[in-house]
C-alpha cells in the first residue's frame, strides 16, 4: 500500500521560497499570481495492507519525523 504525505508551511508562516517563486513568475510575465506556497511531497511504500492502520502509522511518522509541528502542517493520503 502506498501513502502520500504533503507537508506545507502553516498558514501565517512566511514562505520565503514561495515568495521568491512568485516574484520569478511575475518577472517571466505570468500575471495574476497572487501567492505561491511551496511544500514537499513524500511518497511511502508500506507493507501494511489495512488502510486505517496505514493512516495511523503514517500520522505517527509525520508527528515524529516527517513534519515539524512548530512551522508545518501535513496531509496524509492512502493510495
Amino acid at each position, binding site marked *: 500500500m502506498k501513502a502520500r504525505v504533503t507537508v506545507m508551511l502553516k498558514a501565517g*508562516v*512566511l514562505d*520565503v*521560497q514561495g515568495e*521568491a517563486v512568485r516574484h520569478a513568475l511575475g518577472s517571466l510575465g505570468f500575471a495574476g499570481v497572487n501567492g505561491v506556497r511551496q511544500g514537499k511531497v513524500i511518497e511511502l511504500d508500506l507493507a501494511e495492507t489495512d488502510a486505517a492502520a496505514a493512516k495511523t502509522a503514517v500520522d505517527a511518522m509525520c508527528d*515524529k*519525523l*516527517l513534519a*515539524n509541528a*512548530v*512551522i508545518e502542517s501535513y496531509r496524509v493520503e492512502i493510495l
Partner: protein
Amino acid sequence: MKAAVVTFPGSNCDRDLAVAFERAGFEVARVWHKDSTLPQGVDVVGVPGGFSFGDYLRCGAIAAQSPIAAAIQTHAARGGYVLGICNGFQVLTEMQLLPGALMRNAGLKFICKTVGLKVATTDSAFTAGYAKGAEISVPVAHHDGNYTIDAEGLAQLQAEDRVAFTYSQNPNGAVADIAGVLSANRRVLGMMPHPERVVDAAAGGTDGAALFAALMGGMALA
C-alpha cells in the same frame, strides 16, 4: 569539568568546538551519533555546526532522532548543560529541547560573515562572562537561521529573559532579531553564530572565548 562533543555524519565544526572547550579548561570526550550513552560524568554536551545528514528532510531533523539524541535528552532532563551551535541549534529545536524553529533565511542566500551580536541576558552560565548589552563580533555561516516562534512563545521567551543573543543587524529575518535562546532552566543554549570560531586571536577574534570561560567558571562553582 567534562564536555562531550557530538559528531553526526556531516558535522564540520565538531573539532573547533572541542578545541574551544579544551582551551577553556574542559576535558573533552568526542561522541559518535550512534553512541547511545554519554561518557560518565559529562557536565556539558556540545552539539556542533555542520550539515548533519546533509540537511535532508529539514535541518537537524534526522540527527534529532539519532541514538545519541536520546542520551542528550536524558542529560538535559536531569539538569545537564547543552550548547548547540548553528546546526546544533537546529538539532536542539528539532529535539524540542528549545522552542521555535529555524527556517530558510529571509533573503534565501547562505550567509557567511562576521556579525555584531548583543548580549541580551547575562543570567546564564553561558553569558555570565559578558556585560549585558555588550556587542560582540561572531561569525555566522548558515542557510537556515531564520528563527521563528509564535507570538505566545516569543512573549514567554522575552518575559522569562531567555533570549541570550540578538543580532545588531538582522541578517536572516529572525523574529525579534533573535540569534540565540535559552531553555526554561537556562542550561540549554542554542545559537546560530559560531562562538567556537572566535576563541583565538590568530584565527580571527576572541569574542567567543568568554562564553566557554564563563561556562567553565560557572560550573566549577556549582
